């Protein structure tokens, strides 16, 4: 197979959610002289775009979008030794967590994975995260966005505590804050001073991308 054929084969293996094939073709493409940047742009990015379109056309499920994103991440790991000091660019950084008292993290995990697939760097603080941990992470990581999730009405009040703690630490105006989860609403987001509310993972990621790229 020629270099171009191999780049297409990597792309197609992402679309077909076939990790083993994608790995095999990536190694072959590198041997055939493909650069990491070519593989990122022509194989991973194009493959992800096709999968995204299939998801929008209801042909693929969200879970398949996530798997494709993970295959892309695995290919990137293979490329790392070949990058010669160049960094793979990320469009922005997000600190994300499920608030204190709430152990329901599956929704937050979906959002984190979709953000990574959308080329964000994600710092996942996990579940049951107290306000001071959000503040520490914002100081340390200097993210563009803070994302919070809560499933329960009992725990959603913690979101306001996080925003208040960010204000107290003088960090509130340095980040955008987005919230989501079964318990919260757009009105609640407004009432506690969050910048955005994602009714679902797709919308949450769309808002984050819009904040960063302006599109």
């Amino acid at each position, binding site marked *: 197979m020629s270099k171009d054929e191999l780049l297409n084969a990597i792309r197609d293996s992402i679309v077909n959610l076939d990790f083993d094939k994608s790995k095999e073709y990536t190694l072959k493409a590198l041997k055939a002289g493909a650069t990491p940047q070519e593989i990122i742009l022509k194989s991973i990015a194009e493959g992800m775009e096709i999968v995204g379109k299939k*998801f929008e056309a*209801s*042909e*693929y*499920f*969200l*879970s*398949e979008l*996530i*798997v494709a994103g*993970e295959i892309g991440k695995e290919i990137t790991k293979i490329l790392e030794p070949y990058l010669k000091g160049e960094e793979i660019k990320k469009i922005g950084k997000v600190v994300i967590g499920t608030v204190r*008292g709430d*152990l329901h*993290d*599956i929704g937050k*995990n*979906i959002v984190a*994975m979709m953000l990574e697939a959308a080329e964000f760097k994600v710092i996942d603080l*996990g579940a049951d995260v107290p306000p001071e941990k959000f503040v520490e992470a914002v100081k340390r990581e200097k993210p563009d966005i803070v994302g919070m999730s809560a499933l329960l*009405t*009992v725990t959603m*009040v913690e979101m306001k505590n996080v925003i208040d703690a960010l204000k107290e630490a003088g960090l509130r105006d340095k980040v955008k804050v987005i919230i989501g989860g*079964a318990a919260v609403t757009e009105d609640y987001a407004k009432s506690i001073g969050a910048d955005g509310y994602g009714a679902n993972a797709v919308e949450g990621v769309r808002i984050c991308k819009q904040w960063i790229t302006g599109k």
Partner: protein
Amino acid sequence: MLQKWCQTMRFSRLTYTPKDLVFGFSKNPLKYGTGLEVGNGVVVPEVKYFPRVEKDVREEYKSITEQLLKKAVALGIENLQLETELTYLEMEDPRLVVEQVNLQKDLIERYAKEYGLHVGYRVTVADIRDFGKPKHDEEGFNRMMEVFELVSSNGADVLSIESEGGKELFNYSIIRQDLLGIVSSLGYLATFDMKRLWKNIVSIARNKSVLAGGDSACAFANTAMKIAGGLKDNMIPHSLASIVRVMSACRSLIAFEEGATGPGKDCAYENIYLKAITGYPISMEGKTSAVAHSSLVGNIVAAACDLWSNEQVENIKLFGGYGPEVFLEILHYDTKLMNVAIEDKTHFCLRDLMIKSDKFLNPQAFVLSPDIVCSISEVIVGEKDELSRTVASAIKAIELMMAEEKLLLSRGEKRFIEMAKTRLEEIYSSPNEKVERALEQYEGKVEKLKVKDYLEV
């Protein structure tokens, strides 16, 4: 450590045929509480409630219980079950739980004496364990057992839980459609945890002369149901959520194999499998769960219920009264209709209408139909161990879906079930070897997953 004297038993045949699996009738009816009979020809409303967060929790439970009992008297309800689901926060202080349970039980007994009500009282203990801690959080486990003991001594008639063993791997796997991960979670890790938990819960229940009710796979099958969402959501395949329900039946059955007697907990939609196999009565929730989440199975789940329940409804004021009393009224009219059908001997007709209204519109409803349940349950009881039955039951569910022309499946769903069948058949060829090898890999990738703790604790 609590005494481990309960004997594990295996069910080797079904208790029902699809023809006689119907609401209100259980082969092993139960009598408890203030004379409540369940599964003996009458369907009973079981109401579940949630206290307002800003109020004192004991005052809230007192007020909710009183309003429910008053409403029962006002509506002429003779048979009733209350369910208190303890929250993580309540679990922090077992002394408060004791006060709260005593308060509720005193009220129940007072109304039972004054008005002749037959009331059962279920307490569901929250699974507060942090599986990332050493030995799967021994302190959390011990507190759960302490609360089970305390509620049993202070008025609970039925003990239940929604346990979460295996959940860390399940969460990782479900959003990736990773069938080997799901099988490893439900058919392997959860199996070890369920056996340990239910040996202890059954021991407490027997010592305190209360009922060991059952364990809902809420953290698994209901999570899958919630993620699958509605017909247009396209998050995960509905057929995946439906096979997770079937695999969850294999997991929830373990409580009964360890000695639970029901009535099974309401949010375990897989309960119909347990009734088909064990003959013990079950509680179910369906359209009445819309207060907390949407589903595509609102009518069909009532087909074989013995208690008919709702999802947690917050104690907020509505035009017709507070949330819980409004829901009790809804449950009352639903059960009244089922009970009149039983009296008139038209209950099979009503059951068939419930089934017909949902069965073919979605795979999640399809696998809850009594005929499908019995076919798959035959496979469950025929397999040699927990892991094999978990895989084999999912394969059978897929075969039945594929064979049913009337079942509505999108192109994506059809693509998924074909892939899933191949994958599950591969796993079934050597399940232990595949799962054990996979778990070594998952351990490095899945947060908090400690396989050794499942095997050794």
